[in-house]
């Protein structure tokens, strides 16, 4: 050992050096922009005039007073609650179904990959064509089977637009939840299921006592991931409605985009963007608390 450093401290140094490129990279493309956004949120920065004056909490106060921001927050939370809950329930149901002995089970399972791999923008565009009021497939199906008298404007009415987008999102994501659940189902102790069956336990109680504990962990991970994605949702809404009609589908990301890139108030947009992070943090903490309680039981 010619080096003055011992073999172990040399190894430790190398270990850190190997992390360095990642750390520096993340610092530059995520860490610094994030800190800058926090700083900006307390200033009057404009998009075209990047250095603004310090305005304290003004941007935040204005955000909380703004009906647009409150509306967008409510829409976002509603969208997340609607999509995440339905995705989890439907995902588990599909997984349980495809866990049964079926002819062509491998084919059915293979299909799950398609919605997951389809680019979100293409998905949104394809559902826009399905909802098209004049030649959309949905109107054609519903009128031809007699459920609908005349063609409807699904994305043009505030009563249906947010649900129409949610359906597109759910279609794309249920298969992922199903795949996660199917994988987790491999860990379910089959003997216990058999034993419970012989003891005469109902299917529901079998599911609750044997299956559920095995899949709840992965499902929670899926819920956290989907919530994060849902809170920052932009592309699917942008392509399908751009936030309309009458702002009924305007989510926080679209609100922030408009504030920063349409109204050019970068500082104010930054404060509203940080509200998205806050909502994410709150929801994730709720999940973690739920998971802890589950683990304690």
């Amino acid at each position, binding site marked *: 050992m010619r080096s003055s450093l011992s073999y172990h401290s040399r190894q430790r140094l*190398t*270990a*850190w050096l*190997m*992390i360095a*490129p*990642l*750390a520096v*990279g*993340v610092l530059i*493309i*995520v860490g*610094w*922009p*994030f800190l*800058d*956004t926090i700083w900006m949120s307390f200033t009057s920065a404009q*998009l075209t005039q990047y250095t603004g004056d310090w305005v304290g909490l003004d941007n935040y106060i204005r955000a909380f007073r703004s009906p647009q921001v409150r509306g967008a927050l409510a829409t976002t939370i509603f969208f997340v609650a609607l999509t995440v809950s339905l995705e989890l329930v439907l995902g588990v149901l599909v997984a349980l179904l495809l866990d*049964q*002995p079926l002819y062509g089970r491998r*084919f059915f399972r*293979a*299909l799950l*990959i*398609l919605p*997951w*791999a*389809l*680019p*979100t923008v*293409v998905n*949104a*565009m*394809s559902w826009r*064509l*399905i909802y098209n009021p004049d*030649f959309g*497939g949905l109107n*054609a199906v519903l009128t*031809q089977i007699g459920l609908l008298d005349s063609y409807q404007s699904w994305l043009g009415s505030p009563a249906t637009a947010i649900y129409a987008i949610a359906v597109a999102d759910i*279609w794309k994501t249920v298969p992922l939840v199903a*795949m*996660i659940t199917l994988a*987790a189902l491999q*860990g379910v102790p089959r003997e216990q299921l058999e034993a419970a069956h012989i003891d005469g336990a109902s299917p529901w109680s079998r599911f609750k006592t044997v299956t559920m504990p095995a*899949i709840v962990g992965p499902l929670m*991970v899926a819920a956290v991931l989907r919530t994060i994605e849902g809170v920052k949702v*932009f*592309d699917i809404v*942008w392509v399908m409605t751009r936030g309309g009609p009458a702002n009924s589908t305007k989510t*926080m*990301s679209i609100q922030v*985009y408009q504030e*920063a*890139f349409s109204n050019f108030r970068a500082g104010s*947009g930054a404060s509203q*963007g*940080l509200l*998205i992070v806050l909502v*994410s943090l709150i929801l994730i903490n709720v999940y973690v608390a739920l998971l802890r309680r589950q683990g304690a039981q």
Partner: protein
Amino acid sequence: MKQPLALRVVLHALAILVAVIILAPILWLLLVSVSTTTHLTTLPFEWIPEKLNFDNYAKLTTLEPNSRGEMFLYAMRNTALVAFGATAIALCAAVPAAWSFSRSKGGQSNLLYVVVATYMLPPVALIVPLFAFLNGLGLLNTKTGLMLVDCSIVLPFTTWLLKSNFDNISHEIEEAAFVDGASMLTVLRSVTLPMAKPALATVVLFSILLVWDEFFYAFILTNDDRSQTLTVAIANLASGRVSDYGLLATAGILTALPPLIIGILLQRALVSGLAQGGVKG
């Protein structure tokens, strides 16, 4: 557990229903892409077109100057280059870091969680500084600029996936190499990575998929043929200024094709990866 026949029939019917629901939007896109506008707007709607019209595919696969095809093919080239570039850059940073995270028990693991947690940040909360940053470097509306920014999406995923994969690779051979006095980099390069080849392939495909799907950064940071990606091209076409829905659907099909192929290739890795994650719970 032998199931009664009636139950079996119901289960199969349900499975077929699921399959139909999964396939319907994709088939609809295919149908629109080979239909003429007249066919689409004729009511009541005929589900089987009388003749297939592949004009749209021809229109989008031509390099004729100033055609929509040229625009589309440029966007496809840009998307592919950005996807490969961002993946390559991200792997260079993520592979050594993930290995280090996996093998050392020090304070690094906190850093791993920080990197993974950045996934939580919405792009809208980062975009203005990134915009100013690229602008200052003259990288606005360039593929390089977009590649760098897209790494922020790719890195949390690749680092996490690689770390979990390295965790599952036996330490014993590595230990033997260390005893022989090999440096960490040598061990990583000549011992660990060859064993991790399948995992690396999975991570590469995942990463390409993520970048292919990316919309927001490309929407803000790119402008034209030189750097615009497919997702932005499609969003622009879909914005209501184009009433040629067949062309739009065709663009969607062609854009979705590579990711769908990658998805099918990833199938096995994804399922086994999820299973491992599931076992660990």
